[in-house]
C-alpha cells in the first residue's frame, strides 16, 4: 500500500528501452494475461473458502468435538489472522517479484479476513453471549484481550465497506489509501488479541510465529519507506526536482 509508483521510474525507463524486466525469467509471470489472472483469482477464492467449507462439513457430520463453540470460535479466529497475513503479504511480495497482478488478489483476501472475522465476532457476541450487549460492553471495558480483539474487528468494518471500486472512486485514491492503512493497526491488534489470550498459559508457540510474520511484513514496509525517504533527500539535486527512487531494485 502506498507504493504505487506514479513518478517515472528507472524500471519504466528500462522497459521502454527494451531491456527485459528482471522477473521475465520466471516463466513470464511478470505479465500474465487477464484470463490467467482470473483463473488464479478463482482458484484462490475456492482455497480461501475451504476453512469455511470444512466447518460446514464438520458441523454436518457432528465433528465439532467435545467443546463445539470453543473449537469453531478458535478456528474462525485463526483463519481471520491467516487471511490478514495473506492480505499483508501481497504488497511486499509484489515488490520482491515484480508481479503487478498480485495486487488483483488483495481485495479478495482482505474481504475473506473480514468474512472469518465476522464469524468469529458473531460466535462470541451472538452465540456465546446471546447478544447481551451490556455484558459485551462490560467485557470490552474490563478485559484487554477482548478490548483489542473488538477494536480490530471494528476497524475492519470501514475497510470492508469501502472495498468496492465505487468507494475507491468516491473517496479518491489518496484518501482511500490513507484509510486502508488501518490494516496495519488491525494486524497489530489481532496479534495482541491472540497473544494476550495465550498469555495466562504462557503458550506462545503458535502466536509468536504469527507475530514474527506480521513483524516481518510491517518491518519490510518500514524499511522501504525509510530508504525511499533517504534516497529522496539525496536525489533532491541542484535542479530541485525530486526523483523518486525505483521501487524494484
Amino acid at each position: 500500500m502506498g507504493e504505487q509508483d506514479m513518478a517515472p521510474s528507472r524500471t519504466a525507463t528500462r522497459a521502454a528501452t527494451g531491456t527485459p524486466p528482471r522477473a521475465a525469467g520466471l516463466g513470464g509471470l511478470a505479465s500474465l494475461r487477464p484470463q490467467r489472472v482470473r483463473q488464479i483469482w478463482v482458484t484462490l477464492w475456492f482455497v480461501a473458502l475451504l476453512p469455511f467449507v470444512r466447518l460446514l462439513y464438520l458441523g454436518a457430520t457432528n465433528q465439532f468435538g467435545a467443546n463445539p463453540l470453543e473449537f469453531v470460535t478458535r478456528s474462525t479466529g485463526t483463519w481471520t489472522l491467516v487471511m490478514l497475513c495473506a492480505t499483508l503479504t501481497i504488497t511486499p511480495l509484489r515488490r520482491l517479484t515484480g508481479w503487478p497482478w498480485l495486487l488483483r488478489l488483495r481485495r479478495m483476501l482482505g474481504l475473506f479476513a473480514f468474512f472469518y472475522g465476522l464469524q468469529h465476532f458473531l460466535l462470541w457476541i451472538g452465540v456465546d453471549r446471546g447478544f447481551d450487549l451490556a455484558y459485551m460492553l462490560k467485557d470490552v471495558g474490563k478485559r484487554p484481550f477482548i478490548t483489542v480483539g473488538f477494536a480490530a474487528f471494528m476497524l475492519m468494518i470501514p475497510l470492508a465497506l469501502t472495498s468496492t471500486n465505487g468507494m475507491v472512486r468516491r473517496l479518491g485514491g489518496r484518501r482511500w489509501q490513507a484509510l486502508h492503512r488501518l490494516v496495519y493497526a488491525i494486524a497489530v491488534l489481532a496479534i495482541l488479541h491472540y497473544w494476550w489470550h495465550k498469555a495466562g498459559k504462557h503458550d506462545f508457540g503458535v502466536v509468536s510465529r504469527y507475530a514474527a510474520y506480521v513483524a516481518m511484513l510491517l518491518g519490510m514496509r518500514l524499511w522501504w519507506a525509510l530508504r525511499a525517504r533517504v534516497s529522496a533527500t539525496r536525489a533532491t539535486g541542484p535542479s530541485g526536482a525530486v526523483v523518486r527512487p525505483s521501487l524494484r531494485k
Partner: protein
Amino acid sequence: MLIPSPRWLRGDDVAASEITPRHVFASRRRWLALAAAGAAGSTLAPWFARSAHAATPHGAKLPATPNNSYVVTDKPTSFEDVTTYNNFYEFGTDKSDPSRYAGTLRPQPWQVAVEGLVKKPKVYDLDELRRLAPLEDRVYRHRCVEGWSMVIPWVGFPLAELIRRVEPQAGAKYVQFITLADPKQMPGVSGSVLDWPYSEGLRMDEAMHPLALLTFGLYGEVLPNQNGAPVRMVLPWKYGFKSAKSIVKIRFVDKQPPTSWNIAAPNEYGFYSNVNPAVDHPRWSQATERRIGDDAGGGFAALFAPKRKTLPFNGYGQQVASLYAGMDLRKYF
C-alpha cells in the same frame, strides 16, 4: 515483414520418432492433475475428519465399591470426551495433545515417595499404594478454570487414608504434590510453558477432607495415561489444575508450597483456586460454565447449547465451605 526463424527453432531437425504424440502427453497431464488432486485430497482428508483419532482403548478393570455418598446425579460425560479433551501440558498445550502423545508415558513400574515432616516416610510401589485402602467408585463434578466442566466417575480412596498411615508431625501444615517431568516420556516438558516439574499443594485440613480423592482409575478402569496415570489427585471443589496428575512425590511441609500456575501467573491463579462464580478470571467470567456433552443433539445445534451456572465450591459448599470460614475468598482466590 516475415523474419525467417532459424532451423533449430523450427524444430526441423527433431526426428518424428522423438515427438511425443498428443494423446500421450495429454494423458500424462491428466495423470499429473489426478496425482495433484490426490495429494491435495489426502492432505485435506485428516483436516476434514477430526474424530478419526479420538478413540481411546479401554484399560484394565479396576474393581471398586460404589460410595453413594459421593455420587452426583448429573449425567456423566462420555468416556470419549473424558479421555480426549484434556489439559495435561506435559504432553502439549492442545486439548487433543494428551490423548495423542501420552502413549509414551510408562505408568508401570511406578513409585511414589511420601516424605517431609512425617513420622513414617516411605517410598510406595504403585501396587502397594493402591492396596492401602479399599477403592471406591465416586462420581464427581469437574470444573476447569477455563470455563468448561465434566462429570466423571473416578476410582480411588480418600487421601486421608494415606496421610493417617504416614503420621504427619506437628509442624506439617501443608501437603505438596510433585508430578513426573521426564522429557523422554513427556514431549511437552521440553517446552517452557511452566516450570517443571508440576507442583501443587493443599493446606493440611483440605488434604484431610474426605472429598480429596487419591485416584487410580476412571469409568471402572485404570487411569488412561492422558488422565494422569497411574495416580493423581481429584479435588472436585477446586479448579481442575489443582488436581495433580502422574504424582511421584507427596511432601509434608511447614510453609505454603509453591504451585506451578501460581508461579506462572499469580494474578490469575491463586493457591486456593476454589471454584467461585463470584471471582472472575482476569480474562473471562467464572459465573457460568459449558458442560462438555451438553450438545443438544450434536452438529450445529451443539453450538447453541446453553451454559450452566457455576456453583460456589462447584456445588460442594455444604461439605467444604467450613474449611474457609472467615477467609476473604476474593483475596485468597
